[in-house]
Structure formats: structure tokens, C-alpha cells
């Protein structure tokens, strides 16, 4: 059973305090170390020559003209660099017999997606490199391209195009979970058969469109080979993983590589990759013995930084006639793109445990077929697998409610895990430690004015208003805080999921925290300072947080999967506690008391029952001097801890969305968005609000606006922000957010991850609302993004509005000929 606490109000404690982010001034003003701001003496610049074709044999590369261009130092191809370029690794072969194409950063024989690098130009300035890149002539022999996901999945049987012909198939892996086989639940086929004869069967196919992470700072890398080590600065989320991958695939000893992620401007998963461009820069710098820089253009970023989502979901939900779910069967097709990215094949698997969501389903089966195509590779994007799962189940629960004639909230409550049932082992085999779906839902309903809005909806329907109102619900949960290493091992993942922290007590009373998590906009420096200040009783301002440099934070597994606080924060707490325990005997010695008689509070050790005491910062000074320490005592309070989580972490929440749909045009307008998330104990409410607001917009954008579209030639049509509709503040409304608090029982802070929650929850809330607005007009689904045209067509035909299939012209193209 989980106790639900009242949210803490105003407090003088650091935990729960609205601290403004200490890193923001430098991040917002840009007066900081973005990778592209780094300039080294003698540094050369790279420009990439990229394939315009999705699939082609390279029959010749003429680099002579480019080599002769002004200030060009070298032009190198895949053949020139050979094995020195290393390979891009797949760290998560999801099945032992996974089909994994070799991924050279710069192939020399064949290109597999439009945008793949075929040559690199090195020049004294970035502009000269770019100019010369246009002079490289590449001869291609086009090959049939595997573009459509469904066609690609069966191409080995139908004779269709194969993304990598030597592999003979586009199917990379089939990964399956069955609750009957796993012993976590019943037989889903039996549940379906029973529902077919005497119950409710909901069968749907949903599309998860392809998305582009579209982080603010384009990727950039600087490699300096001129010291004792090769130093790599990269706009990456994963400096530690990048160092490992570079060492493992190039033969350069790991100890000879230093990777620094300086300030990094966003990632959303899009920067957890080991990229071809990083590997090419590394190889070129080593070859030439000079520092080099590569910064991608926005166009290159949209085209080649890994994309996200891109699934077809075939779903079968079995239920009794009154709405109790008896089984769920999920059959996915997942588009990997041209290569199996670092965790690309694992993204659908991360979703596998979440389709059952907050519900008690007796039987569950999941299968994903991971498919290679000749498009940009896909990998983690904010939520990675869980948004897809949450969308599917939350859409289905609305459909079930319609089928049984009940309110969608009522159907959810009939099926969800009651708060007194925690900890609860799900049909997917996870143990949810805490939660209270009743409390979050009650609060959200109250904030939303659910009953009043339902009444307004009924009135508008009765009046036949041109603008109809729809209400959408999403009662989500997710698994985050990646991850228990044993679980990762059982899933065949190539690394563990622990995190590391160090605490350095400086002689002047200041404190340095080192974390292996790697911030790229989340606010680690502020939140971790608050934790340290709270635990040690030192001023917030006296704590410095160091991260993102393998030479300073030598151990770490970086930032993704909402793990920094729940895993890295716990490591920090343990390191802080070690500092206190190391200080205790020193305090006892200096205070001439027994260690057992000391208590530590507010940054001071005091002798119980006296006013005698000493601040931990004074002890730090005394330890530095080391003049008067207990015999045999090491003169250091510095401590470290490596923490391997015992479980995932399960934030949840109830999101309610109201939209107005203009039935004349199909335009969808957000009317109200309310959410009550339970993310356990909140360290900094201001940061949490930022995460929730940003996450909501990103999820709403999938529902309404964003889609990466390829035409029949394999060209990314939505290759600029003119055609890839990234929303801004002007497109959103003010969100109303609140929290209930069921502390996590698996970390000592009681926290849960919040980095992905808003994105995971909001997409189905919005689509459910859009469908709800026009359901009485015969509509039961609208394909994402719910464009005005699709909504309009759905209303006219009572269908889903169709998928984006037409080839379409980008707004910017070569016919552009305006004079002024």
C-alpha cells in the first residue's frame, strides 16, 4: 500500500524549493562553451559530402577538383580512412540472431540512406570546406530502395527492395513476450476467443509517425589529437558511452581518449548516439595530426540525426461486456531506418512492458518486428517506446468505453491497479513500487471541471454547433530511471544501468559534486546542488556540480530515460552519506566525545545534550590540514558511490485535454489542458514544471503537428522547419499542472523521473479529445498528426483521414527564383 502525501508547500529546506537554475544565465545568453564556440590553434574544419540517394552503389568519387580548391587540406573517402574510422555500434542486439548491417561511418561501396556521408572535406575555414564539398563528384548507380515499412517487412517473401541486399531480408529481429509463457499471466489467444464469442473485442491499427527530435543546438564535434590524449568535445548526451565506443572500435586505448560534453543544447534522446560524424572527425584528426571541428547545419541535423517513433501497431483488446479487460495482444512493425542504431532495436522493447500500463490485464502478448529500410536511422526520442505504448493503450481504453457505453474514466478505473494493491507485479512482469491513480485522477478531474465540460459538449452536439468540443483522457504510467543492470543483462543490453557520484570536500568549505550523468539542459547543476546542500547542510551556492568530462567524472552512464535524478541522485545521496560518516570520527576526536554521542543536523555535528558542536565544513578544513586526526585516519572526506538501481521507476499521472474542433475546416484548437502527475518527492518544483510543460508540448506536437515525411524517391520532404512543423509558444495554451505524491520506495529520496512524462502522456490525451469531438459524426480514429485536412476528411467520410502518402514539394526547392 502506498501512502499519498500532501504536496509540500513553502519550505526552507532545499528539497522542494523553487530554485532558479544556476546554469541558466550562461545557457540563455550563450556566453558559454557550446562545442561550436571552441576554437583551437591550427584547427581545421570539416564539411560532409552526402548521398542524395536512399540506396545506391558508389561507382566512383572524384575528389581532384575539391582538393585543388582554396585552403583545402584534404579530401578523404571511406576507402581512404579504412578501418581507422571505426564502426558505429549497436549496443542492444535484442535477440541473439539479430540481423545487424555493418555500419561504417563512411561507407566506400554503397549508401543506404539519403544523407549518408561519402566523403569529407578538410579546409582551413568552414566556408571553404563547404565550398569544396560541392566540387566532389560522386558517381552512383541507384539501387531499389526499401522505403515503405510494411512493404519492407515482407520484402524477403515478395521480392521487394532489400535495404542491405547482402542480408537477404529487411527483418532485423522479432522480439516477443507472452504472459502465458513467462508465467506472469494467462493465454491471450484464449481471452480473445472468449471475447469474440461472448464479450467485446477491439481491433485497431494505429500509426506512430516518424518524428525528428529537433534539439536546439545542432550536433558539433571538435577533436584535438595534439596532446597526451585525444580530446573530443561533442554536443552529446553520452560522453562516457562515446568514449567507450570510440576506443572499442578504433583500437585507441580508452585511457588515451578524453571526451567532454561541454554545455549541450538539448537532446531529447537525439544526442545519445555514437554518430558517423563524430567517428569521421576522430579519424581525420588522427590522420592529419591536427585539431578539427565539424558542426552540422540545421538541414543536416534534420536529415541525419536519428529520428524517432515510426511504427505500425496492430492491437487486439479483449474485454468482458461490462468493460473488464481480459487480454491485450500487440503486434508491432518498427522502422529502424538504414542501420540498427546504438539502442535503436531496443526502443520497441522498452515499450513492450508498458502496453498494459496502469491496468490489471490477465493476459498479454507483445511482438515487435524490427525492420530495416533505406531511411534515416531511428532511435530513442523522448519517451523511447513508452509514448508508443501509452498511445496505443490509452486510445484503446477510449474505444472500449465507447463499446461498452461507459465514461472513459469509469472504464479505466474498473481496470486499473488500486492504490492499496501496491507493490503490484504486472502481467508484463514488472513490479510497480508505488502509485495512486485514484488520487491523481480525482485531482485532475477537479482542476479540469470534467463534468461541466461534458455538459457543454452535450449541448454543442445537441445544437449541431460548427465548433465541437472533445475531451481526451490519458492515465499514463511509464518505466524510467534506466536501469537495473541485471534486467538490462537479461534483455541482452550491452552495458549496465548504474550511476556514479563523487563528493569532494574542499578545504575552504566549498563542495564539489561529480556526477556521471551528463546534463544537456535538464538542470542537474541546480537539482544536485539542492540535494547536496540539504544533505550536508551547506549553502546551495557553495556547491559546484561537475559533469560531462570523462577526465573529471571518470565513471558514468550519462543521461537518458529519466535516469539522472532517480539513479544518479541516489548515487549522490550515498556518496554524501559516506562523507558524513567519514567526518563523524573526526568530529568525535576534535570534540572529545564518543562518535555514538554525536548527531548530525543542519550541517553540524553536535554532542547530544550539549551545545558543543562543529560544522562539517570546519571538519573539512581540519582534515585538509591533517594536523590532528584520529590515529590511522585517512586525511580525506572525499567519497564516491556507484549505485545500481533495484527497480525501474514508475511515475504516473492523469492528463485531461479539451479541444475545439472546427468541423468546417478540421482545425483543432486546444481549449484546456490539465494534468496531475505523481512523480514522488519533488526536488525542485520549478524545474519539474519546465519539464512537464516542455514535455507536454512535445507530445501535443506529435498529436497535431510534427511528421517526418519521405517521398517515393526516399527524399525527406519535411527537411526544414518550413515543412517540419515544430510548434512555438504561440501555438500552445497555458497548462494547469499539479502533483500528487506517492514516494518511490526504491530510492532514498522518494523521487520519480519526470523528463519524459509529459511527452508520454499528452499525445493520446490530445488524439482522444479530437476523436471525441467528432465521434458523434461517425469518426472513430484520426491518423497522427491530426492535421486539419485529415480531421475534415474524417468528418466527411467517417474514416481516419488517411495517412501521409503523397509525394509533396518542400516549400524551399530549386525552382525558387524570386529576384528580390
Amino acid at each position, binding site marked *: 500500500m502506498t501512502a499519498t502525501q500532501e504536496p509540500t508547500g513553502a519550505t526552507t529546506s532545499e528539497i522542494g524549493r523553487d530554485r532558479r537554475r544556476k546554469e541558466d544565465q550562461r545557457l540563455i545568453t550563450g556566453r558559454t562553451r557550446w562545442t561550436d564556440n571552441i576554437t583551437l590553434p591550427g584547427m581545421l574544419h570539416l564539411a560532409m559530402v552526402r548521398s542524395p540517394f536512399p540506396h545506391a552503389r558508389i561507382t566512383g568519387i572524384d575528389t581532384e577538383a575539391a582538393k585543388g580548391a582554396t585552403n583545402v587540406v584534404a579530401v578523404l573517402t571511406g576507402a581512404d580512412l579504412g578501418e581507422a574510422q571505426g564502426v558505429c555500434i549497436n549496443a542492444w542486439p535484442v535477440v541473439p540472431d539479430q540481423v545487424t548491417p555493418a555500419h561504417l561511418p563512411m561507407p566506400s561501396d554503397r549508401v543506404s540512406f539519403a544523407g549518408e556521408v561519402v566523403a569529407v572535406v578538410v579546409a582551413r575555414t568552414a566556408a571553404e570546406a563547404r565550398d569544396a564539398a*560541392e566540387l566532389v563528384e560522386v558517381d552512383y548507380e541507384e539501387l531499389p530502395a526499401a522505403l515503405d515499412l510494411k512493404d519492407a517487412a515482407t520484402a524477403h517473401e515478395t521480392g521487394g527492395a532489400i535495404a542491405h541486399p547482402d542480408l537477404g531480408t529487411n527483418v532485423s529481429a522479432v522480439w516477443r513476450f507472452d504472459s502465458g509463457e513467462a508465467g506472469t499471466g494467462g493465454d491471450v489467444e484464449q481471452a480473445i476467443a472468449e471475447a469474440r464469442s461472448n464479450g467485446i473485442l477491439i481491433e485497431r491499427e494505429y500509426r506512430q509517425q516518424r518524428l525528428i527530435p529537433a534539439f536546439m543546438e545542432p550536433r558539433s564535434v571538435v577533436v584535438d589529437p595534439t596532446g597526451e590524449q585525444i580530446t573530443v568535445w561533442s554536443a552529446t548526451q553520452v560522453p562516457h558511452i562515446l568514449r567507450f565506443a570510440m576506443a572499442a572500435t578504433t583500437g585507441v586505448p580508452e585511457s588515451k581518449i578524453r571526451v567532454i560534453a561541454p554545455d549541450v543544447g538539448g537532446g531529447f534522446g537525439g544526442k545519445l548516439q555514437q554518430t558517423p560524424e563524430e567517428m569521421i572527425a576522430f579519424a581525420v584528426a588522427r590522420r592529419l595530426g591536427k585539431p578539427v571541428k565539424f558542426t552540422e547545419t540545421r538541414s543536416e541535423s534534420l536529415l541525419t540525426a536519428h529520428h524517432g517513433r515510426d511504427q505500425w501497431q496492430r492491437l487486439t483488446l479483449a474485454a468482458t461486456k461490462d468493460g473488464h479487460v481480459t487480454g491485450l495482444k500487440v503486434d508491432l512493425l518498427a522502422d529502424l531506418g538504414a542501420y540498427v542504431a546504438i539502442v535503436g532495436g531496443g526502443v520497441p522493447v522498452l515499450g513492450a512492458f508498458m502496453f498494459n500500463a496502469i491496468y490489471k490485464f490477465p493476459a498479454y502478448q507483445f511482438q515487435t518486428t524490427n525492420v530495416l529500410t533505406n531511411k534515416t536511422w531511428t532511435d530513442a526520442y523522448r519517451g523511447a517506446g513508452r509514448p508508443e505504448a501509452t498511445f496505443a493503450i490509452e486510445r484503446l481504453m477510449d474505444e472500449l468505453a465507447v463499446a461498452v457505453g461507459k465514461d472513459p474514466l469509469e472504464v479505466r478505473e474498473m481496470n486499473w491497479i488500486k492504490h492499496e494493491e501496491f507493490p503490484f507485479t504486472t502481467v508484463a512482469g514488472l513490479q510497480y513500487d508505488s502509485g495512486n491513480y485514484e488520487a491523481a485522477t480525482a485531482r485532475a478531474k477537479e482542476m479540469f471541471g470534467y463534468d461541466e465540460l461534458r455538459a457543454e459538449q452535450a449541448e454543442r452536439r445537441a445544437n449541431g454547433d460548427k465548433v465541437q468540443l472533445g475531451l481526451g483522457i490519458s492515465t499514463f504510467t511509464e518505466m524510467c530511471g534506466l536501469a537495473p543492470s541485471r534486467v538490462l543483462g537479461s534483455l541482452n543490453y550491452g552495458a549496465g544501468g548504474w550511476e556514479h557520484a563523487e563528493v569532494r570536500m574542499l578545504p575552504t568549505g566549498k563542495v564539489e559534486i561529480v556526477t556521471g550523468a551528463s546534463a544537456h539542459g535538464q538542470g542537474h547543476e541546480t537539482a544536485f546542488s539542492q540535494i547536496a546542500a540539504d544533505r550536508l547542510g551547506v549553502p546551495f551556492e557553495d556547491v559546484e556540480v561537475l559533469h560531462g568530462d570523462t577526465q573529471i567524472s571518470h565513471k558514468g552512464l550519462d543521461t537518458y530515460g529519466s535516469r539522472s535524478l532517480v539513479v544518479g541522485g541516489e548515487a549522490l545521496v550515498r556518496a554524501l552519506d559516506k562523507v558524513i560518516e567519514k567526518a563523524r570520527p573526526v568530529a568525535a576526536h576534535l570534540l572529545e566525545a564518543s562518535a555514538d554521542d554525536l548527531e548530525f543536523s543542519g550541517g553540524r555535528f553536535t554532542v547530544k545534550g550539549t551545545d558543543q558542536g562543529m560544522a562539517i565544513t570546519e571538519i573539512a578544513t581540519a582534515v585538509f590540514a591533517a594536523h590532528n586526526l584520529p590515529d590511522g585516519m585517512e586525511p580525506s572526506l572525499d567519497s564516491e558511490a556507484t549505485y545500481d538501481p533495484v527497480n525501474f521507476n514508475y511515475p504516473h499521472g492523469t492528463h485531461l485535454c479539451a479541444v475545439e474542433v472546427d468541423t*468546417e475546416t478540421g482545425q483543432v484548437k486546444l481549449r484546456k489542458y490539465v494534468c496531475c502527475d505523481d512523480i514522488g518527492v519533488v526536488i525542485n518544483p520549478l524545474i519539474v514544471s519546465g519539464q512537464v510543460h516542455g514535455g507536454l508540448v512535445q507530445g501535443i506536437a506529435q498529436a497535431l503537428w510534427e*511528421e517526418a515525411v519521405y517521398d517515393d524517391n526516399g527524399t525527406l*520532404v519535411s527537411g526544414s522547419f518550413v515543412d517540419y*512543423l515544430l510548434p*512555438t509558444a*504561440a501555438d500552445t495554451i497555458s497548462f494547469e499542472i499539479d502533483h500528487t505524491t506517492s514516494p518511490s520506495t526504491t530510492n532514498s529520496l522518494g523521487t520519480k523521473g519526470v523528463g519524459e512524462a509529459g511527452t508520454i502522456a499528452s499525445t493520446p490525451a490530445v488524439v482522444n479529445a479530437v476523436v471525441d469531438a467528432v465521434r458523434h459524426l461517425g469518426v472513430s480514429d484520426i491518423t497522427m498528426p491530426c492535421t*486539419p485536412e485529415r480531421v475534415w476528411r474524417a468528418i466527411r467520410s467517417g474514416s481516419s483521414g488517411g495517412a501521409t502518402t503523397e509525394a509533396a*514539394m518542400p516549400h524551399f526547392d530549386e525552382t525558387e527564383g524570386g529576384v*528580390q
Partner: protein
Amino acid sequence: MIPAAFEYVAPTSVEEALAALAEHGDDAKIIAGGQSLLPVLRMRLNAPEWVIDLGRIESLRGVSDRGDHLAIGAMTTHHDVGQDPLVHEHALLISKAITHLADAQVRHRGTFGGALAHADPAGDLGAPALALGSTFVVQGPGGTREVAASDFFVDLFETAISDDEILTEVRVPKHAGWGAAYEKFVRIAHQWPIVAVAATVRMEGDTIAEARIGLTNMGSTPVRAEAAEQALAGVPATEEGVAAAAALAADGTNPPSDLNGDADYRRHLATVLTRRAVLAAAGRS
């Protein structure tokens, strides 16, 4: 996002600009506010050898009253045109359209003449300029000539301006007292219009005496909704009366199909937006 290298010249008079244009011909591009040209150059979709900047030609800036019409200098920024009291009084439709044009940054850099000469059928100024019956003044080696709006827009990104000419001024007939509205349909705020309708009406009591309607992104050029205009004359400004006329708005148009909508959807939008724009212009919404 680095453009190919180009030579740059910034003349201070139209004559100097014309001379530069004559000298470099096909190798030159004229830059006004740069809000369309710079992205094209940065994406290397075009690589002129010369860029001739009109930004220092002061005579091309400003709005003046010329009796029966306003003269808007080609290099006047969108912001300045939009804020101009003469434009508000005599060409309200242009003021209304400019409030929907791109964002504040673009409106402070982009120019009225530059946008029109760029002739993007999704641009927000073509339809109002056309609807108001504007005249375009272009200057070339042989002097100036006037081009009617109906002849100015030739095709996608193509106008009646010759390679050796420069657009210097747009003359907009006065429409004092006419109501106006610009209905722009977008999915997100900073998007080009999927369709937009520029409508301005002269009311006599509760009746629409005269209507002028321009359509944005309903073909390769801005177009007039002539059938709807004619049907609106003498119609009471009611929902029903206007709707019947607005249903003709897409007649004769040939809109594009792209990611944001097929042609048939755009035709439908044009009728809905025309009804709304006309009613708004008539003060009925």
C-alpha cells in the same frame, strides 16, 4: 548554413543599382530585406555571383499620399507599412494582412516590395495588393513603366519585372471606408498560409455594395475570386447571403497539393475562409 561566396554591392540610388544589374545580369540577385533570399542562399539552393543590396537607397522607403492612391516605396519594411496611418485609412486590407505576416522579426527586416517581387504564391501580400487593384512601378534602363497587378504576377516566383529592372513602388488605390479582413489558415503560427483570403468590402447600410477578394496560395499566383466578388454585390451582409456567394470563391482556381492539403481541401477552405473574411470585413463577426 554557409552561403556560397558572392560579391556584394550596396548602391545608394536606383540608377546605380540598375547599372550594377546591367553589368552583372544573370549572375546577380537583388536583395531587399533578405527574408526569402537569405534562407535560399544559406541552403545553397541558389548561388549568385553578385548580390545587389537595395537597403541603402533611401528614396525607395516610405508611404506617401498621391491623391487618389498611396505610393508605397518598395523598400518600406512590413512593420512600417503596417503601422502607417495612411495605409490604415486607405488600404486597411494591407494593414490587416501585415498583422498576420510571419513574425515581428521578419516584419522589421522584410520589405513590402521585396515580398511582392519574390512572388511566392503563399506570401501574404500578393492577394491584398491584387484585390485592391494596385499598380506596380518598375524601373529599367529605358525608364519607368507601370504594370497592373493583374499582369504583375506571372507564375510561381515569377513576375513581370524584367531581368534588367527593379520594382521601385507599389501604388494602391484609396479604399477609405472599406472594411477589411485577412483570414489566414495555418497549422502552426509561423507557417506559410495553407490558404488565406483577403477581403475588403464597401458597405451601404447593411448591404455589401462592392467586394474585392484576393486568394493566397490557391494557384501559382495570387488570384482574385471574381465570381464571388460579383455575387456579393448587393447582397445583405448576413451569414446566408454571404455563404452563397462565398461558395463560388474557388471557381477557376488551381491550388497546389502538398503536405498541408490536397487541392480539393484547399478549394473547400477557400469558400469557408471567404465567407468568414467577408463577414468580418463587413463587421459581422
